[in-house]
């Protein structure tokens, strides 16, 4: 692993963290009036995958997609404008936080129906196979999504046709307030299930950024060289409430202790410390990195706030492509 890549990873993770935390801070201004699922604590996977994939590789995601979108190179201004439901948003204000897209970045869309984009990624994989390009189609989803039948149908078809699809499961142990033990049979690992379905599957610690980067690089290289689909499961943890800007460890579905244990394992701090320790970056460089990101964020919020709402005529536009 070159330091260059590691530093880029740190920058991407920091950027995701700072964006999410700024949204959290400013949400109570009640100007971002849409359901917003923050990924604070889970920055690693989106950043690492986004860094390994090429811009012309495809990615799809879920309700919790900010990190995936930004990691893949999605435009920050247009994302924030979308969360502000403005006409300059990446979806023209029609989608909101749960429906992001950036075609230039290869981010093909995130949607809010659990499991709903998984087969689409397989379809994009099929399109790649048909066109004979060396692109990859990637889809992010949570531990809840693997409960939908469509997950199983999608993985099976990717295996059947050996399509260039990267399945990325971020297992944060919860679906809304429901722990995985209430939803899935005891002792069943998600990656093992995927393997049994016929896809080469591995798992890893989603809060160990450099290890994640390695695993993603390996999987992407295998897919790109015609090895068929790959499945990666990473364990990680969401810090804030399922939907919205607050912390909610007090309401009873999980313990403060559990949260604190994961917070101890903050992936952004960890990577920063590792890179500082081995001299890949200096403290000043990190501070400068943070400043640059914060400036970008401030400018993007300003853009979002100052942008106009979509004009009323837009209501009837784009129902059908003409």
């Amino acid at each position, binding site marked *: 692993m070159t330091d260059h890549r590691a530093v880029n990873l740190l920058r991407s993770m920091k950027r995701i963290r700072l964006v999410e935390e700024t949204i959290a801070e400013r949400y109570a201004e009640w100007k971002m009036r849409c359901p917003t699922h923050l990924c604070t604590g889970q920055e690693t996977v989106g950043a690492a995958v986004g860094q390994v994939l090429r811009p012309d590789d495809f990615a799809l995601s879920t309700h919790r997609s900010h990190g995936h979108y930004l990691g893949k190179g999605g435009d920050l201004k247009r994302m924030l404008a979308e969360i502000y*439901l403005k006409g300059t948003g990446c979806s023209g204000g029609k989608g909101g936080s*749960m429906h992001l897209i950036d075609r230039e970045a290869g981010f093909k869309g995130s949607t809010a129906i659990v499991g709903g984009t998984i087969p689409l990624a397989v379809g994009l994989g099929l399109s790649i196979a048909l066109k004979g390009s060396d692109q990859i189609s990637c889809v992010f989803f949570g531990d809840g999504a693997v409960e939908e039948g469509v997950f199983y149908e999608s993985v099976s078809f990717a295996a059947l046709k050996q399509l260039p699809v990267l399945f990325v499961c971020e297992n944060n142990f919860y679906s809304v307030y429901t722990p995985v033990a209430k*939803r899935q049979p005891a002792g069943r690992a998600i990656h093992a299930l995927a393997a049994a379905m016929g896809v080469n599957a591995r798992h890893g610690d989603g809060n160990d950024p450099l290890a994640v980067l390695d695993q993603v690089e390996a999987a992407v290289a295998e897919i790109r060289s015609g090895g068929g689909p790959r499945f990666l499961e990473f364990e990680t943890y969401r810090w804030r409430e399922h939907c919205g800007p607050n912390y909610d460890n007090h309401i009873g579905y999980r313990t403060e202790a559990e949260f604190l244990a994961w917070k101890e394992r903050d992936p952004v701090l960890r990577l920063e410390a590792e890179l500082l320790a081995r001299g890949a970056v200096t403290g000043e460089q990190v501070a400068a990195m943070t400043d640059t990101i914060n400036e970008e964020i401030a400018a993007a919020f300003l853009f979002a706030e100052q942008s106009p709402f979509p004009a009323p005529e837009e209501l009837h536009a784009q129902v059908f492509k003409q």
Partner: protein
Amino acid sequence: MSRIITYAKAINEAYFQAMEQDPAVICFGLGIDDPKGVFGTTLGLQDRFGSARVFDMPTAENGMTGVAIGASLNGIRPVMCHQRLDFFLLALDQLVNNAAKWHYMFGGQDSVPITIRLIIGRGWGQGPTHSQNLQALFAHIPGLKVVMPTTAEDAKGLLLASIFDDNPVVFIEHRWLHNLEGHVPEEACRTPLGKAATVREGRDLTMVSFSYMTIEALHALDVLEKQGISCELIDLRSIKPLDWPTVFASVRKTGRLLALDTGPEFCSVAAEVVARVGMECFDALRQAPQRLALPDVPTPSSPSLKKVFYQRSEDIVQAVGGMLGRELSVAELEQQRTWPLDVPGEWFRGPF
């Protein structure tokens, strides 16, 4: 004895009473036992009735609907709930291919006494996949009953009646009704399915409405009244079976129909109402019947688009004005709105 409680609380009470009355009643759904308890509607149930009868479930809508159907074939009365109607599109196979026709296709032997609670979202930027109003899909399917209560009292009475009905019932709540308060009897009253409520009597025009649109209609009615127009307001409560006698009698009296709907207009419930009235009461109609429903577009997220997307009381007043050939004022309605249009009131913040 009745007292004032919210619609959400009324639903919660119906659950408690149904589960007390009959040990065969069980309930499950995503988040049913979590700290929020499906907007408060399922709070306390698991503590009281245990986790065998009240349980959370995997995100597997089609399979779990089949599980409900199967259990019901052995005398269980499952009540399933989904925080958004949109999620239940995953389960139309089990609902339509099995539940709706099981009794019929096996010659009237077993039946499927399940109740499916679906919640329609609106506002707060929920947009395309979290605020679809698709009651017409269910109403179109032979063998399903479809219920859409507007008041807290009806929410309780209709939920109890749905749970104890021996057939599959799709019970649709509008999220903007959950905080609405009303007089609700303490006892386990059942409101019969298939009976509309005449909410206001009137002379000049019949409005046929249901669910949240009835609230908008009530606001409109006050303003219309002040401008000398007397409307009869029928709240359908049951979309299917639909209480045609009540609708026809009213239209025969007023000679005018405005059908309201929370859903997209093409093949909507409002279409059915306008069509049937046109077919059955043609001679009584003094002018063309009309409807107010959603335009035929997906739900946008932005408030600037929702403003033109949803029909509000102002639009109802204006539609009535259009029918009667009068310029009517909606100033009063506009003044009443002290909160943003994307929420039902100040209390509503955040996605749910």
